[in-house]
C-alpha cells in the first residue's frame, strides 16, 4: 500500500514537473515571440481640434498635402490640412460654422464620411452629412441637408456647392468622374446621387443599397461607377445610359464569418465591400470585403460582360487566421498606384456577440499589413508604434501621397490632457492623429 502510494507520489511529481516545464517553455516561447515582434514605426501628428471620430475622410492630394475630415458627432465636422514640407497641420474650416448652422438650434453638419476626391485641376471635393450624429434630442427635420463642397488649395477657399436636396441626407462614400465632372455619393438610406459640377444639379439615381450601405464606391476609366449591395452583389452606374443596374457577378464572400450582430442576425454591411479604389495602371479596382475575414480582391470591370472578381488574400489581423470571430473591416485601406502596394490597418478587436464591434476604442495591439502587387504576397509590416513608443490603435482612414508615403488616421496613445477618448476595456487615453509611415521603397 505504502509502496503504491509512493509510486503515485512519484508519478504525480513527474507530471507536475512535466507540466511546469511545458508551461515554462510555452511562456518563454510566447515572450520570445512577443519580444521579437517587428514594430512598424510611424510618425504621428496632432490635429489642432478635439474631434473624437473619423470615418474614411483622409486624402493625400497630388500636391503632397493631406486633407482630413474629422467628426464631432452632434457638433461639427472639421476640415484639416497637413503640409508635409512644413510639417504643420492646420484646421481649415469648422463646417457647421461655415454653412451657418451654429446658433440655429438645428442638427448640424457633423460628418465628413467620405474620402475627399480631386479633380484634374487639383480642387478637392467632399460632402457632409448628419446621419447617426444627432444630437438624438434635436428635431430630425431641422437638418437642412447634406452639402457638396469644393476646396481650392491655391486660394484656400471653400465653396459650398449647395444642398444635395432640401432636408435630404448627405452621402457616405463619394467618387468623382474627372472627365464628365460628376460627383457621386450614396446617402444613408441607399440612394445614389450624382452632382453635375458644371451645371450644379444633383440627380437622384435611385436606391442602390439599403440602410447599411456600402462605404466605398469607385469610378472606372469610362465614367461608370460601382458599389456593392447585399448579398455580395455589385451595382453599376452605366455612364452611357446614366442609370444604375444590378450586376449578377458575386463578390468573394464567406457567410460563416460572424455578421455584425448575432442577437438579431441580419444581412448587413458584412455582405458588402468595405473600401475600394480604382487602379488607373491596371484599369481594375482593388477592394477589401467588409466581412468574410477582410478578403482583398481585384475587380476587373472590363473582363467579360459584368467584369471578373479575383480573390487575392485575407487582410485581417494575422491573429484571426483560422477563426470565425473576425471583426469587420476598417476603412484604413489604400492603394499605392506607383509602387504597386496596398496598405491596410485591420481591426484588432475580436468579434464578441452583443459587444461593440468597431475598431475604435480597442486597446489591443494593431498592425499594419501590406500586399505587394508585384509579388502577390501579404507582408506583415509590424506592430504600429510611433517614434516615442506610443501605441497606435484603430485606424479608419488611409491614403498614399505622391511620394509613396502612407498616411493613416487613427487613435494613438496620448497624455490624459490631450485625450479625446479612452480605450474601452483598458482606459488608455487616446486621440485621433495623423499617422505617417515612410516605407522603404526600392
Amino acid at each position, binding site marked *: 500500500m505504502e509502496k503504491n502510494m509512493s509510486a503515485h507520489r512519484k508519478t504525480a511529481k513527474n507530471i507536475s514537473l512535466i507540466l511546469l516545464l511545458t508551461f515554462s517553455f510555452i511562456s518563454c516561447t510566447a515572450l520570445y515571440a512577443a519580444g521579437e515582434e517587428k514594430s512598424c514605426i510611424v510618425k504621428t501628428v496632432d490635429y489642432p481640434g478635439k474631434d473624437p471620430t473619423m470615418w474614411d475622410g483622409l486624402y493625400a492630394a497630388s500636391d503632397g498635402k493631406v486633407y482630413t475630415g474629422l467628426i464631432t458627432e452632434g457638433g461639427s465636422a472639421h476640415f484639416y490640412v497637413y503640409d508635409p514640407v512644413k510639417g504643420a497641420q492646420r484646421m481649415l474650416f469648422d463646417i457647421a460654422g461655415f454653412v451657418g448652422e451654429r446658433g440655429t438650434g438645428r442638427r448640424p453638419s457633423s460628418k465628413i464620411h467620405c474620402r475627399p476626391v480631386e479633380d484634374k485641376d487639383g480642387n478637392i471635393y467632399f460632402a457632409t452629412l448628419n446621419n447617426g450624429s444627432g444630437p438624438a434630442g434635436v428635431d430630425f427635420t431641422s437638418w437642412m*441637408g447634406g452639402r457638396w463642397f469644393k476646396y481650392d488649395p491655391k486660394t484656400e477657399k471653400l465653396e459650398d456647392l449647395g444642398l444635395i436636396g432640401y432636408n*435630404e441626407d448627405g452621402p457616405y462614400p463619394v467618387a468623382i468622374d474627372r472627365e464628365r465632372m460628376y460627383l457621386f455619393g450614396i446617402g444613408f438610406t441607399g440612394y445614389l446621387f450624382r452632382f453635375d459640377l458644371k451645371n450644379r444639379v444633383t440627380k437622384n439615381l435611385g436606391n442602390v443599397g439599403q440602410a447599411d450601405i456600402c462605404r466605398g464606391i469607385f469610378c472606372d476609366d469610362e465614367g461608370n461607377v460601382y458599389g456593392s449591395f447585399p448579398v455580395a452583389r455589385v451595382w453599376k452606374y452605366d455612364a452611357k445610359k446614366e442609370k444604375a443596374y444590378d450586376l449578377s457577378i458575386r463578390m468573394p464572400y464567406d457567410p460563416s464569418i460572424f455578421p455584425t450582430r448575432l442577437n438579431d442576425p441580419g444581412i448587413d454591411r458584412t455582405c458588402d465591400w468595405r473600401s475600394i479604389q480604382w487602379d488607373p495602371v491596371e484599369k481594375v479596382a482593388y477592394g477589401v470585403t467588409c466581412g468574410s475575414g477582410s478578403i482583398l480582391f481585384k475587380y476587373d470591370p472590363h473582363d467579360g460582360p459584368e467584369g471578373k472578381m479575383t480573390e487575392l488574400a485575407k487582410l485581417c489581423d494575422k491573429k484571426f487566421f483560422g477563426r470565425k470571430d473576425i471583426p469587420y473591416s476598417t476603412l484604413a485601406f489604400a492603394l499605392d498606384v506607383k509602387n504597386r502596394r496596398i496598405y491596410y490597418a485591420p481591426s484588432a478587436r475580436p468579434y464578441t456577440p452583443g459587444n461593440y464591434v468597431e475598431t475604435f476604442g480597442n486597446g489591443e495591439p494593431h498592425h499594419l499589413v501590406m500586399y505587394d502587387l508585384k509579388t502577390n504576397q501579404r507582408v506583415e509590416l509590424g506592430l504600429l508604434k510611433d517614434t516615442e513608443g506610443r501605441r497606435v490603435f484603430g485606424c479608419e482612414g488611409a491614403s498614399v501621397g505622391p511620394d509613396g508615403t502612407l498616411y493613416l488616421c487613427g487613435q494613438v496613445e496620448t497624455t490624459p490632457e490631450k485625450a479625446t477618448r479612452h480605450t474601452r476595456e483598458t482606459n488608455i487615453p487616446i486621440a485621433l492623429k495623423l499617422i505617417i509611415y515612410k516605407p522603404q521603397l526600392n
Partner: protein
Amino acid sequence: MADFGKKVFIFCLVSCLLTAIASPAFARGGTKTNIKQLQRVDVRDLGYPMVNEIPNNSCAITSLITASNGKIYGGTSGEYAYLFLFDPAINKARHLGRIKDQQGIHHSLVEDSKGCIYIGTGKDVWEEFELSKYGPRPGQTDMMPWDDVMKIFEENYSDHVLYEMKLSKGVMGWQYIDMILWNDIKNYFKDYPGGHLYRYNPKTSDSKVKLQEMDCELEDLGVPVPNNSIYALAINPQKEMIYGLSYPDGRFFTYDIAAKKFKDMGPIDEKIIFHGPERQWRSLPRDLVCDTATGRVYTSGTDGMIVYYCPDSNKIISTDLKVPADEYHAQSYIDYAVVDCFAKSPSGLIYGGSSDGYLFSFDPQRMELVNLGKPRVSRRIRCLTVGNDGKVYMIAGERSTSRVCQLYTYDPQKGGFEDLGLLVVDRSPYYSWRGYQFDSMTTGSDGTIYCGESERRSHLFLYIP
C-alpha cells in the same frame, strides 16, 4: 445647490443618451418599424431573379388591383412599363410582358365585368427632366398659350405683376417660374404621341411565360389624349364605361367599351398650379373613383374642389367640398391640394388621400366630406386601401430619401391613426428589404394588404394584418 442641479442635469442627459444608444432602434441603424410581428411582412421579387424578373429601372410599381379571379395585377413604370401578376395560389409574382414603347402605368389598371384588365399607359412619372432657369432653352419650343396666360394672370395677379409679366415676355427671358415650369413640362411631352388604353385578357394570357424583353399580349384600344399620359383610370363595369384623366393637360376622358370610342370631356382643372411637393409636376388629381350606385365619377378639380362627372348630364360638375389642404394665407398664392388616391369601402363610403397628406372620407349619397386628419407632418398620402377588417391602410410621405414613407392605419370604429412605421422585411440570412417608396396598394381577397414599391429596384410587399 447649483452644483447639485448641474450634476442632476448631467446625470439625466447621460442617462438619456445611454438609453438611446442601448435601444434596439439605435442598434438597428435607425430602422424603425412599429409592426410587432415581422413575420406578417414579406416581399416578392417581380419574377425569377436574374432570369425574367422585371429589370431595374423598369419595376417601380405604380398600379395595383385585386381582380375577380383572386390574383393581384400590377403595372410598373420606368424605362419600360410591365404588367405583372401575383398569384396567391402559387405565392409568386411573375411578369406578363413588357408594354411596347410605353414607360408607365400610373394608377391605371381596372377590370371589367368579364374579367378583362384595362391598362392606361404614359411616360414614367419619376423620370427627371432638366428644368430651365430663364425660359425656353436652346432647342426648346415656346409652348406657352400667351393669350390664355394673360387671362389667368389678369384674374389672379395684381396690376404690377401683370405689367412685369408683359414686359418680360420675349424681352429679357421669362420671369415667372410657373411659366417656365409649364413650358418645360409641355416640351417634355410635345413629342410624346400619347398614352394608350390596352385590354389584357387573363384567361388567355396569364399562363404564358415571358422573358424580360418579351411583349405583353394586349389589344390596343387607342390613344385618348394625344401628347398626354394616362394618369388615372376608373371603371363602371355595369355600364361598360372607362373614365380617365390625362397628364399634363388634365383632360377628363371616357371610353365606351361596347362602342370602342373615346370622348374628351375637357379639362378637370382650369388652373395650372404647382402645389408640390414634387417640383416637376403640375398639380392634377392622381386618382378617380366611380360610385357605381349613381354612375358618378369623382375626383378633384379647380381650386381643389371635389368634382364629379355626371353620366346623366354628361358634364363635369363641381361641388362645394374641398380636398383637405395645408393652406397658407399669403399674397400671390393660389393654394389648393389635389386628390392623391381613393379607396372604396364595402359600405359605399369613399376614402381619399390628399397631396398635402390628409385622409378624408367622402359620402357620395350625402355629399359629405370629413377631414380625418394627417397621419404625419410630411405631405402626400401615396396610396391607400380598405382592409377586410374595415381599417383604412395607407402609406404616407413624400418621395424623400431621408424621410421615407411609412405605413399607417385608420380605424373608423375607434377613430385615430396607428403608425406602423417602415415596411421592413427581414428574412436574414436569405433576404431582407426595407420599403421606402410606395405608390399603389390593394387588398387581397383574403385581407392581405399588397403594397407596390416604387424604386429603381422594386418588390411587391405583403402585409398580413
